[in-house]
């Protein structure tokens, strides 16, 4: 096997096989997914979500992320938060994602179809963030944590993002900025989030797994 054309055919074919089998087939199966309301029913014959039983006021999920939260995603990407945080919840019974409170249901391919960049992640040095917007509800908590994680979570190894905040002198008449954070700092100074920090927090708050899809539902609330 010395001839160049034969070698190249072999090299091409072996890689093409895995490309076709993985990416192309994946695209065939997942590339056409649409946002859906939870009221779609499964067509038993073709096993696809064919029949819609329309309901009043239904929303189709996942919804698109817009505005400030979308700008915040660019910050999340540019700062490389993905090096320590995942955004995917594994199914109950595989790992302990459910038990740790990282999400009430597993994430499925449809959850990601509206995202132009999918950040499922590869490392959990920090907790999973798929549902962090549900877990932590106040913007103040996020700001205080980003500004100095060790003050909020003692012993945390998350780096501080204080450079996203401005330390400003409080004006002469003692008027504080409306956005100033409730953080201890030097006398006569206040800490104000930049637009970048506000966008990032809006993004974190938008990370919620609080909707049903035809293929997965949140567990029913226990009745009491």
């Amino acid at each position: 096997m010395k001839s160049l054309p034969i070698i190249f055919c072999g090299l091409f074919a072996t890689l093409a096989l895995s490309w076709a089998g993985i990416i192309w087939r994946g695209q065939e199966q997942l590339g056409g997914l649409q946002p859906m309301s939870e009221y779609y029913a499964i067509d038993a014959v073709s096993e696809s979500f064919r029949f819609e039983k329309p309901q009043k006021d239904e929303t189709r999920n996942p919804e698109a992320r817009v505005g400030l939260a979308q700008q915040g995603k660019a910050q999340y990407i540019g700062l490389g938060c993905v090096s320590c945080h995942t955004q995917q919840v594994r199914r109950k019974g595989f790992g302990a994602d459910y038990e740790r409170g990282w999400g009430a249901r597993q994430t499925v391919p449809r959850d990601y179809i509206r995202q132009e960049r999918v950040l499922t992640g590869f490392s959990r040095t920090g907790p999973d963030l798929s549902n962090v917007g549900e877990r932590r509800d106040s913007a103040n908590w996020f700001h205080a944590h980003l500004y100095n994680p060790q003050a909020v979570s003692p012993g945390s190894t998350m780096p501080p993002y204080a450079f996203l905040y401005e330390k400003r002198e409080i004006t002469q008449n003692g008027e504080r900025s409306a956005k100033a954070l409730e953080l201890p700092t030097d006398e006569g100074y206040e800490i104000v989030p930049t637009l970048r920090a506000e966008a990032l927090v809006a993004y974190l708050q938008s990370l919620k797994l609080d909707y049903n899809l035809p293929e997965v539902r949140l567990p029913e609330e226990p009745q009491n």
Partner: protein
Amino acid sequence: MPSESKSSEIDRSMKLPGLLFLLSAVAWLLTGTVFALLTSIKSTFPGFLANCECLTYGHISAAGSNSILYGWGGNALFGVGLWILARLGRRPIPMPVMLLIGGVFWNIAVTLGVGGIIIGDMTSVMWLEMPSYATTILAISSILIGVWGTLVYRYRQPGPVYISQLYILAALFWFPWIYITAQIFLFYLPARGVVQVVTNWWYAHNLLGLWLAPAGLGAAYYLIPKILGRPVHSYYLATVGFWSLALFVGWGGMSNLVGGPVPAWLVTVGIVASVATLLPVLIIAINHHLTVMDSFDRVAADPSLRFVVFGTISFTLASLIGCVLSLRSVSEISQFTTVMEGNSQHFVYAFFTMIMFGAFYFMMPRILNCSWPSGKLIQCHFWCSAIGITLMLIALYGSGWIQGTQMTAIGAYGDPVHGDFLQIVQNTIPWLHARTASILLISIGQLAFAANILWMLVEAARSCYCGMIGAAKDAQGEKFLPETAAS
């Protein structure tokens, strides 16, 4: 001896491009190690350099991996690979200036890319973090270099073809393909939803398995028989090993998606492929290990061979561990922990990089026509690297396993046993200190390596300069000094 002068002619044709690739490789290796060191310190002391946005954790960890993969890995692979292709083809490189151009642009691209990551233009896609203004240049220069490798093979002297040539051609051919595919599906025409994640793992797995690995294996297949002066254990097995590796590796990355938002068949395919990869791994192991069997005294004595044999043993071990890590019951624990980082370091450093070190020790004296100035520095390089990487692997596998078992443990009442996430973080910190120590050790080795290379360059330049003076004096009809005549 005509064959002798032949190989020196080949070495001369590779001198400039070879030096460009090898020296930039070493520069990137040192850069990447500095980034890795800072990253490791920050992972235990988050306040370290925290006010500098450029050096925030997310930036430098990506800058480190990209410097090592494309800066060190790419340059080393091109330099060593093309030289081996030319040597085995028994023909000088045609128009080596084209290789120089390709190499210059490759390095411009990596510089732009790593710089872009540092200033925050990163994409946050694993191992593809470089911004778009770097990636096009990277892709085009890799094609140019690949075409030149193909030409070297095409215009070889008639005669036997070796398995190394196949491996190196494959690496040169596969890289542009996987890289361009990944760029298109992730950035230019982004695929919908998790197809991006699938593409990312396909790429990342193949970057190691179909780019760095073939180059490392090809170099080992060249160096071991060459240095020992005996043929490969079985040529037939080597061919089977190559093609089965080509067939199975491409699918293996999917096992990393276990438990994730992808159809289960994809993960199953990945696991089956990872287990199937054992076949080529065993074949390669038999070939490499049996060829050096009963020559361990030579391995201990020869500077290149020591590194290469360390690398081939690491390839076998890293592949076996990688296969175990793909099984669902194991990956449930190891997924998302430093175990996975450990396994990629096992491939990138303990296998690929060590073999490349061996290849540098073999190749540099030949293209510079000079011998290594210091054996002590080589000793220091070897032991710091070998002990350092072993310590790093223990630290990463160890901390990851602790992290994974504690993160997934569920108590009798369905509650997490280690509910306090911060406690798990704390439990890994001693291991991460060990990683910092290991990187320090590794960088001492690298400094010894770099010092030896600089020293050798100075010697080579001096002897070249003396030669020139001698020739000039000769031309003026002066009687020149005997020692310059000798050099």
